[in-house]
């Protein structure tokens, strides 16, 4: 299972890398989303995939899953939710101001 998960996360991160390399504002934003998903899977996998009861209130379960990675991932999801929302609005505003979403055309100096 670990190997499958590692490959899944690897593929997601590869997709994210590809999207990062494209020249479109929006695709880069999607790259950010994909990257965050890939990394969250990585956290879940590297901290060990175990099946068992959550260690909540019951102390006589056979096996426990580690709750910390899940807490970490939940927090990370919340953060990437906020950041993605900001990034999308920013991409939209940049597109409106510049009239283009091609990053090649978004170069140049401050004094133009």
């Amino acid at each position, binding site marked *: 299972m670990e190997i499958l998960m590692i490959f899944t996360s690897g593929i997601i991160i590869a997709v994210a890398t590809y999207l990062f390399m494209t020249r479109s504002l929006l695709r880069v934003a999607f790259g950010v989303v994909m990257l965050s998903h890939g990394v969250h899977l990585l956290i879940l996998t590297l901290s060990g995939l175990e099946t068992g009861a959550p260690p*909540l*209130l019951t102390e006589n379960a056979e096996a426990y899953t580690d709750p910390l990675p899940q807490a970490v991932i*939940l927090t990370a999801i*919340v953060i990437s939710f*906020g950041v993605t*929302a900001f990034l*999308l*609005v920013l991409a*939209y505003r940049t597109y*409106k101001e510049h009239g283009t979403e091609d990053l090649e055309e978004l170069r140049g100096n401050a004094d133009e």
Partner: protein
Amino acid sequence: MKTNFLMLHTITRIVSFIVLSFSVYLFFAGHNAPGGGFIGGLMMAGALILLYVTFDAERINRVLPFDYTAIIAIGLLLAIVTGLNSYLFGDPFLTQYFEYYQIPFVGEVELTTALPFDLGILLVVVAVALLTIISIAEDVS
């Protein structure tokens, strides 16, 4: 041009009500079972966004005349102040207290200080999600 989305309007009236009540359930289920302020808040925001999409923004704004920026601030403050109350008992920040009470008709109920903290989070999440989407939507029209 005014289009008549009869199906959408009818279904939204029912569905949004179900989603809203489920979000309230999730909010209270949180802490010891899956649920909590964040999940409940997202679901509540989802229901409200459904309303915004179905009916026009003006009508919803008349029904829900809230300043979402202020709600974010209030939610944040609620969460911090809940954390701060542990200072009164000389414990570190964010220490939580809980106690079981017997309430007539309801039975035994657990009251925790995590609840107002979660309520703060719920307010922040709802307001942030709505504010983001509304501000983009209003810019287009």
